[in-house]
């Protein structure tokens, strides 16, 4: 677990680029050969399916009347379809709550583990990371059972204080139930990324700060956090993309949360239902691309808003 993220890792290509010297053809060929294997897999398993899905999304197949070319009708339908819009609004709201919570928790844990250097810290680091090693499906099932009214422990625990347990699988609380599962699953992973970034900071900076009379608190706020901003932005983008494509956890919990999670709960679930439940592959593809559009807009807006912070993509 000695992951090192160098501060200046991504070389700033555009700044150092001069007029490229002419590379001999033979060397160019070797370059192509090296990326060949990757290129083949990339084209076959990423680009080709995407192009095919895009192609599918331009048609409409009806049970009666067969397939017809409809250009962007499926997209018009998606952006006026309450199922899609409600789902998209749900994942956006979910991101707005989830991402700050997740980042605060992982940042706090990383900072604490960075300061404490006992054997217990290594153990804690492993334990905090552990949920990420549990497959999402197993994690969701496990939490589903923990939330269960009939055989979950919540009822007993709250019973001790004479209170009735909250039902995290009900319509009102499912939002928080899912929030808890996702945070539990991912906070440890983000903690490791931030921890690695913290380990990459030159310790002489702390020394200099101490000589200047800075307290631990000041070192944390003024040195550590600003220096790991690129890593913070990185996990933010990861979390944003992941959350907008929310699928596994609600899909698994659907069977346990009676009625609280519909087939159109998130856009990805809706696309899945359209394609595989109702044989409407065309509309399913269109929803996937529409969701891709939403993700792109959200990420772009975010990167635009943080462009001055020296982000990792600049």
């Amino acid at each position: 677990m000695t992951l090192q993220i160098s501060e200046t890792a991504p070389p700033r290509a555009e700044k150092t680029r001069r007029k490229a010297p002419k590379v001999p053809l033979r060397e160019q060929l070797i370059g192509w050969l090296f990326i060949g294997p990757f290129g083949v897999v990339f084209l076959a398993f990423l680009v080709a399916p995407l192009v095919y899905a895009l192609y599918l999304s331009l048609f409409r197949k009806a049970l009666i009347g067969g397939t017809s070319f409809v250009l962007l009708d499926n997209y018009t339908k998606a952006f006026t379809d309450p199922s899609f819009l409600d789902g998209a609004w749900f994942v956006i709201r979910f991101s707005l709550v989830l991402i700050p919570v997740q980042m605060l928790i992982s940042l706090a844990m990383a900072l604490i583990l960075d300061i404490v250097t006992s054997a217990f810290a290594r153990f804690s680091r492993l334990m905090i990371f552990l949920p990420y090693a549990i497959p999402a499906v197993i994690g969701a099932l496990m939490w589903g059972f923990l939330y269960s009214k009939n055989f979950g422990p919540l009822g007993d625990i709250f019973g001790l204080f004479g209170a009735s347990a909250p039902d995290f699988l009900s319509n009102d609380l499912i939002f928080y139930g899912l929030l808890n599962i996702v945070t539990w699953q991912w906070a440890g992973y983000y903690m490791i990324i931030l921890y690695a970034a913290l380990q990459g900071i030159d310790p002489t900076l702390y020394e200099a700060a101490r000589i200047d009379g800075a307290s631990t608190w000041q070192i944390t706020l003024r040195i550590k956090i600003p220096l790991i901003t690129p890593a913070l932005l990185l996990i933010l983008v990861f979390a944003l993309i992941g959350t907008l494509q929310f699928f596994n956890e609600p899909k698994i919990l659907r069977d346990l949360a009676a009625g609280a999670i519909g087939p159109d709960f998130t856009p990805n679930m809706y696309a899945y239902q359209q394609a595989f439940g109702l044989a409407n592959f065309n509309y399913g593809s269109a929803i996937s691309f529409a969701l891709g559009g939403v993700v792109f807009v959200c990420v772009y807006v975010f990167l635009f808003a943080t462009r001055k912070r020296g982000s990792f993509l600049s």
Partner: protein
Amino acid sequence: MKRKPFLAAAATLVLAGTLVACSSGDDGTSSSDGGGGGGSDASNCTNTIPKPDLPAVTLWAWYPNMELVVDNFNELNDEVQVCWTNVGEGGDEYEKFQTAIAAGTGAPDVIMIEADRIPTFQVQDALVDISDYGYEDVKDDYSEGAWQDVSVGDAVYGVPVDGGPMGMIYRKDIFEQYGITPPTTWAEYEQAAQTVRDAGGPLFGDLGANVPAVMMALQIQKGASPFAYDTDDPENIGIALNDQASKDVLEYWGGLVEKGLVGTQDQFTPEYISGVINGDYATYISAAWAPGYLTGAGVGEGADSGQFAVAPLPQWDPANPVQVNWGGSAFSVTSQASDPELAAKVAFGIYADEASLTDGWTNQVIFPLNLNALEDPAFVDLEVEFFGGQQANKEVYVPAANAYEGFTYSPLQQYYYDAMTEQLGALNQGSITGSEAADRLQDDVVSYAEEQGFTVQ
């Protein structure tokens, strides 16, 4: 020295090339080898084929005793062997079949489907009409109503295996404790529920949003007829989901939920089953195959053994009782079968031998439609262990099956069920009334039908 990187790169590329070749080679074999579609060539069977020299037919099915059924068939048959896979129950299997239809490859030769889904797949030309492949020979083994449920117009798209005549399963201990007798009408059902609740008893039943077929059956019992569809006129469809009868039944159940008399748990879930085991529900409105399912899930064991009993389904009008059906499956030949005639032999022959049928009904995993079993005195008089020795077939299920007149299913069944599930969920949350649920359902399904190219009447 300069050659080395070049050679390495070339070697890598060749390696990648062979990998790609491998995968495309696999594709080639599975699509050309139509007999073993679905990646289920002989080596992928769940069962071992005793006579490997005979041609094999692939089959998807999820009956709990399917392994035995397949072995029986293979043992008895010298013409063809069955290669069986269980790809999931109900919806899971339909999703895979749906994907295989869209892909044009990957479906099995013979598939188990519930009778209510037959029009959905038939309209996509995914099933083969088997009326020319030996239907006449086995025609008399099943009642006319049974054939009716697997036919679309004059064409036969499946061989019936089991049905789901409905009854009311109840707990004798709870009924005794609160001094009630099995209700015969829905009004009595509500009264009994109120009695139990007023005495601080458990819930009386459950309105599961994920079993829309039950609600459909209960609406039909009140006189609703959700769909009118005829393949001779495939572009027209009649949809009546918000008539008075449909609304009344939704209002009735919505009312039970509102008064806290019945639960709102999804059925077939661990939460629901653990509730049944706990004795959280006094009744279970369900079909004849339910005891086998409940037993398999661990209900009725230990202290609960023999605590269950079954009574006929409560009626709206006791003078004119109506019996309804939930579930029941058939074997259909898919249009991807390489040899439909051979596949039809399997569809007709499997689960039709005495040993398999007897195993099925003694364990209550099926309510057989094959008349050889249905009219067998041993079946009719069976003292069902789950019901504490009650002659459930004779008293409840056989009369219900005989009075059942058949439903008209539509090619929109899957969408209709999904939409119903959504509305039942909202009804369970108390956010809409039963009438609103019916109206929304009607609008939703009508607009889907129009989008799919049907003319709605």
